[in-house]
């Protein structure tokens, strides 16, 4: 049974075509990775699937709901972890989770139990009452992952989940994600970390807005005629003929840089 269906998705931003005729489907319970360099269209795909951005043409369905016509049905069925933390740093971990409970209308009598469970799952029981601004990058990610699971979503979207984490935080988070397997949850993540893509059920390689290849890591190697011990990096290079590209800093990057200098404060 397909939980996600994309049919001819196109997205333009002005003259730029960020996504060009993307067609793919993801089965229930699958771990699926979208692999590609910066600006390839991975985030655009994720934004369309999470109803944050409508496609210019084509259609997409998540958990049986059309992303344009039934956004609320989609939103009820998904959990999302963003590329940069979407947390309120002036609130505690617990307070952030309680906001999430209200957003998803989790019944009041269950809120305490659900919040405790999420903190426990994120191994943040001790830190739950501390302000999020005192958390490390890894702790923030675990909190967000725990939060994204609070309302029992059918599909979990992870946008570059381990980006910016130190090796230890990366491993810890990856172990948490691996735990989700076998729970019937479908996971879709974007990454340009090849080792992470390697451990997924299927990988879609995307570049310049187009899906270049799709299959299990093993199938992808065969597709481009490489030996079984070849890395996905080699597959990627064979398909696209180049490595990663840099992007210019947009307004958002400038804001993030400002955040790193001193935080929100506006005084």
């Amino acid at each position: 049974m397909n939980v996600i269906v994309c049919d001819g998705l196109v997205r333009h931003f002005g003259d730029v075509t960020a996504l060009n005729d993307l067609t793919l489907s993801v089965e229930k319970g699958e771990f699926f990775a979208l692999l590609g360099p910066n600006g390839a269209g991975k985030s655009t795909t994720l934004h369309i699937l999470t109803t944050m951005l409508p496609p210019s043409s084509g259609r997409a369905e998540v958990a049986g709901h059309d992303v344009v016509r039934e956004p609320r049905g989609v939103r009820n069925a998904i959990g999302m972890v963003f590329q940069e933390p979407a947390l309120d740093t002036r609130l505690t971990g617990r307070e952030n989770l309680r906001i999430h409970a209200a957003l998803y209308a989790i019944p009041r009598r269950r809120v305490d139990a659900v919040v405790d469970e999420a903190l426990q799952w994120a191994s943040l029981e001790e830190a739950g009452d501390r302000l999020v601004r005192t958390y490390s990058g890894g702790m923030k990610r675990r909190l967000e992952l725990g939060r994204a699971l609070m309302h029992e979503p059918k599909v979990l979207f992870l946008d570059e989940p381990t980006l910016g984490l130190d090796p230890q935080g990366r491993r810890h988070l990856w172990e948490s994600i691996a735990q989700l397997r076998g729970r019937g949850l479908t996971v879709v993540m974007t990454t340009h970390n090849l080792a992470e893509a390697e451990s997924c059920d299927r990988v879609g390689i995307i570049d310049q807005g187009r899906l270049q290849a799709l299959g299990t890591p093993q199938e992808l190697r065969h597709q481009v005629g490489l030996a079984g011990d070849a890395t996905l990096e080699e597959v990627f290079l064979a398909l696209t003929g180049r490595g990663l590209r840099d992007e210019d800093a947009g307004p958002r990057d400038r804001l993030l840089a400002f955040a790193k200098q001193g935080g929100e404060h506006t005084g």
Partner: protein
Amino acid sequence: MTRARAAEEHPAAAASPRRGALEPRLIGVFWRRELTRWWRDRSQLFSGFARTVLWLVILGFGLGAALRDIEGYTYAQYILPGVITLNVLFASLQSAISLVWDREVGVMREVLVSPAPMTSVALGKVLGGATISVIVGSIPLLFTPLIQVQLTPLRLLSTWGVMFLMGMLLTSFGVMIATRMKTFEGFGAISNGVILPLYFLSGSIFPIRGIIGGVGFLDIPADLRDQLRDVGIYALGGGWVVQLPVWLQVLVYLNPVSYLLDLMRWALLGFRQLPAAADLSVAFVLPIIAIAIATRMMNGMRRTH
């Protein structure tokens, strides 16, 4: 892991609940969030006190030493509603502008992908900003014994009411600006480009219809003072009559804050310069229109094109 089991045992929990646009719980959660964030950022409370001391005590008594009075009120008394307005301006716009931050690196993205009705989130935010406005706006009231203004319960309640309406209007206005802002590198542009013009052009620190220089030697006789008031000019000590330039008058009349401030001065001191009907209609109609527009614009953050 117990979560999967919990889902089986409580299938209702996983089903999507029916939700209208107005959800008291959600409004309450976002109202409270706004207040908690404000309370934890002590620099905002400190700024509120520093601003009050600078404007009300230092400017009030400093300039008040040169100007004898405005319509029988000392200068410090005259600018008290203005200083409250300044505090409301800062509190509400600061609270509203944090939306830029929220949208790019904060909680707002989490709201966008959630099934929650944005209208309730927006209302919580605006009501939160208005509540903070009342708190910060009340700081100058602590100084009323110093400047000899008597606070009766009625005066206090009506002043709080005006502060709340002003807070709703200005927070909504700030939300409109915030939804249009792409990036945000400090509060300076808002402070100098929005707050201070609205403040200076509201009759906060000089009377709206005219100023009479107060450094003359002669007192204006009482009957002349009455005649001047009939044509809308307020005598300030003794000295020369100076009308505000027309362009300045126009700007003051166009500024909605002028009417709210006039209403507050009426509530607090019993002294008013603009028609009561204009004051009341601006105070009660404009905040509602502003909230409607701000809510609509926040709904627009969920892109549909």
